[in-house]
């Protein structure tokens, strides 16, 4: 075996790839060759490290030196200084990785300290395109244990006792789902992985698939063994090309190693997997719509019951779990249900991955034990709100969820607490908003999304959400009446009660939760015709502060409609609000911040 004295781990996730990590890898190879270090230093392309904000990220072991925002020209320095001479290049380290004169390794940085990585255990650690690395990190050991030491019932029991609940949003107990499908009668059963991550702003499933695809494959084989299925499907978004590519590689490698296919571990158990690509429809994240899509139909949901456990793919008993749910399975089998149930709260066990984004310093993926408070996530792990702005709300659960205010930041995160606050866990999107975000506009944004993605099968969703959007547009354009707020609430309640699938039933949540916590913002739009956050364009009026104006005339030069008058150097400038098209060009151009919109 080759031994290397140093490992250079470079993030090959979507975020870092978008900011050029592939070129970094090539440059490292060239530099290492130039310095004759190829036998001593190994470059590894890993999955996502999680702290996307700092990308592209390079980590050098054994020191755990955490280089952030690495540019091509930095590679030469890191190679010559650090890898050749053993001197860490301090200026290029992540800002929090240096404390006075001490260098903190990646695990000591605040962003990672409070995290507990279970589902993301191997992400950013191994090369996801190399099955040997996965195996070296206990890969396929859980499958071996399940097949050779455990009965099917014991596997299901272990999952049940762990308390694991579905990580795709619903939070249904996973073990029960396994048991239902196990008990369902049928000559053919299927295991399906829902990797149609459509929630805007959530990308944990993609990260798992990109960073640790074998974890999902292994868990699906275990699931197949437990419920008695020999065929599995992974339904993944076509918009995730890197994830699809790595899954293909992983499936082929698993086949080569006999971990997929016939007679796995010589136990007479056959199982194989196929990838099916989604074609851009959010509703396909709903389980019955997803099944229709695999069957080659329009992705429209089916009424339940019958549930997929009894009548799923092609009418056969089918078990669907989400990517992150599967990523927990191998760890539960290996470490035992007690270990897993030892983390989290009474009714929500284990950890949950969140995609932290929006107005937050450390954008990225975080995995925390259930029961961690929102405040810890946003301020300690997330590093707070940038540019000294004030926190306004955090949105969880995407288009199905709601907004949570500062008053509830000390709530421990779990399925039930979030629902009690009018939001939900969802797949784990967590978008932070500050005082510059208008909550009515955010509600409108989500409704716009659901209207666009509604499949059109049931009238409450097809017609109802459209009507809600119309009312919201009316309010944000300054034509709202107080009656509209009641109409919104009434419509929302009716849609929740009568829509066919989860998409429709939860579509009104963003409106209901913002009405609950930010009613005053709605009222300001309606009665004062004013957008307090200064977002809703049609309600804005641009004005020039005559005391701040330095009479430079730059704004007038930028105005496309020539609606700003004044005399350069002599007279302060004024905006003719009648002619103003509210494009904001003047405000952007003013060097003295003399222009205000309210």
């Amino acid at each position, binding site marked *: 075996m080759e031994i290397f004295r140093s490992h250079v781990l470079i993030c090959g996730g*979507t*975020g870092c790839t*978008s*900011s050029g990590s592939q070129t970094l890898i090539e440059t490292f190879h060239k530099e290492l060759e130039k310095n004759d270090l190829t036998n001593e230093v190994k470059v590894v392309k890993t999955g996502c490290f999680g*702290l*996307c*904000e*700092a*990308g592209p990220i390079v980590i050098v072991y054994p020191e755990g030196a955490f280089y952030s925002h690495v540019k091509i020209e930095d590679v030469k320095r890191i190679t010559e200084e650090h890898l050749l001479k053993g001197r860490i290049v301090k200026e290029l380290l992540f800002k929090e990785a240096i404390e006075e004169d001490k260098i903190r390794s990646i695990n000591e940085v605040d962003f990672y300290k409070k995290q507990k990585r279970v589902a993301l255990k191997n992400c950013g650690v191994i090369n996801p395109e190399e099955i040997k690395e996965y195996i070296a990190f206990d890969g396929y050991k859980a499958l071996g244990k399940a097949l050779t030491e455990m009965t099917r019932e014991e596997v299901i029991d272990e999952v049940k006792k762990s308390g694991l609940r579905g990580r795709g949003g619903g939070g249904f107990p996973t073990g029960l789902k396994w048991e239902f499908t196990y008990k369902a009668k049928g000559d053919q059963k299927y295991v399906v992985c829902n990797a149609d991550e*459509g*929630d*805007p*702003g*959530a*990308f944990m499933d*993609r990260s798992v698939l990109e960073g640790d695809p074998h974890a999902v494959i292994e868990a699906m084989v275990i699931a197949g063994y437990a419920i008695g299925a020999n065929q599995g499907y992974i339904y993944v978004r*076509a*918009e*995730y090309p890197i994830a699809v590519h790595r899954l293909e590689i992983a499936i082929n490698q698993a086949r080569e190693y006999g971990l997929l296919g016939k007679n796995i571990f010589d136990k007479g158990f056959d199982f194989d997997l196929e990838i*099916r*690509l*989604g*074609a*851009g*429809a*959010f509703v396909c994240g709903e389980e019955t719509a997803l099944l229709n*899509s*695999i*069957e*080659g*139909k*329009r*992705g429209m949901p089916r009424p339940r019951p019958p549930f997929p456990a009894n009548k799923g793919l*092609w009418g056969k008993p089918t078990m669907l779990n989400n990517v992150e749910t599967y990523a927990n399975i191998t760890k539960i089998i290996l470490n035992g249900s007690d270990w897993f149930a030892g983390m989290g709260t009474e009714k929500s066990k284990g950890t949950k991955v969140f*995609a932290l*984004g*929006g*107005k937050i310093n450390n*954008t*990225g993926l975080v995995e925390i034990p259930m029961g961690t408070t929102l405040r810890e996530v946003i301020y300690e792990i997330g590093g707070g709100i940038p540019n000294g702005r004030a926190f306004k709300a955090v*949105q969880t659960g*995407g288009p199905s969820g709601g907004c949570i205010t500062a008053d509830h930041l000390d709530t421990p995160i779990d399925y039930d607490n979030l629902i009690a606050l009018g939001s939900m866990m969802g797949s784990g*999107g967590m*978008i*932070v*908003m500050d005082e510059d*975000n208008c909550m009515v506009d*955010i509600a409108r*944004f*989500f409704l716009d*999304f659901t209207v666009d993605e509604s*499949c059109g099968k049931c009238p409450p969703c097809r017609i109802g959400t459209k009507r809600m959007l119309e009312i919201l547009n009316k309010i944000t354009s300054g034509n709202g009446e107080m009656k509209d707020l009641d109409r919104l609430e009434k419509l929302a309640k009716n849609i929740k009660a009568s829509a066919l699938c989860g998409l429709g039933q939860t579509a009104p949540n963003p409106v209901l939760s913002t009405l609950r916590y930010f009613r005053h913002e709605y009222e300001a739009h309606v009665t004062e015709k004013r957008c307090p956050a200064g977002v809703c364009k049609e309600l804005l009026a641009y004005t020039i502060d005559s005391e701040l104006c330095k009479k430079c005339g730059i704004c007038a030069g930028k105005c496309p409609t020539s609606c700003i008058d004044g005399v350069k150097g002599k007279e302060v400038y004024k905006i003719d609000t009648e002619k103003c098209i509210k494009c*904001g060009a003047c405000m*952007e151009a003013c060097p003295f911040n003399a222009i205000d919109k309210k």
Partner: protein
Amino acid sequence: MSKHILMKENFEKLDQFIVMQKDKKGALIPVLNEAQKIFGCVPIEVQKKISEGLNISLAEIYGVVTFYAQFSLVPKGEYTIGVCLGTACYVKGSQKILDRIKKEINVEVGKTSPDGKYTLEATRCIGACGLAPVITINEDVYGRLVEGDVPEILKKYE
């Protein structure tokens, strides 16, 4: 343009793929994905071919094609500009970026410019939330944008 893409060679490629997939269950969407890749769109002529190959009615195929955002009936422009309107990008001002691009290239969202140069799309989350707000132009990704960056970027694709 449509004559150009509907060449014999492309149909042969499609035929080969259909033969491979024909006996699989639920083959329609994989075939449509491939057709979209080969032709750059799935116009009615291509749907007819698939209908014959898979023995599925044209009506059903049309229903599926129009359901999914991934399939388009008309060819896309030389450059497809996607502005991410995922939540993380939206709260960081991607709507402004979209409006600016719309103005600069004079194309409405979801439409292609008459000269076939640009297609403008408002895309769902592409998962590069750390770079928000993000746009993609074909394979290129541009992140951490402010409205003023737009003209400079577009210049590269004239």
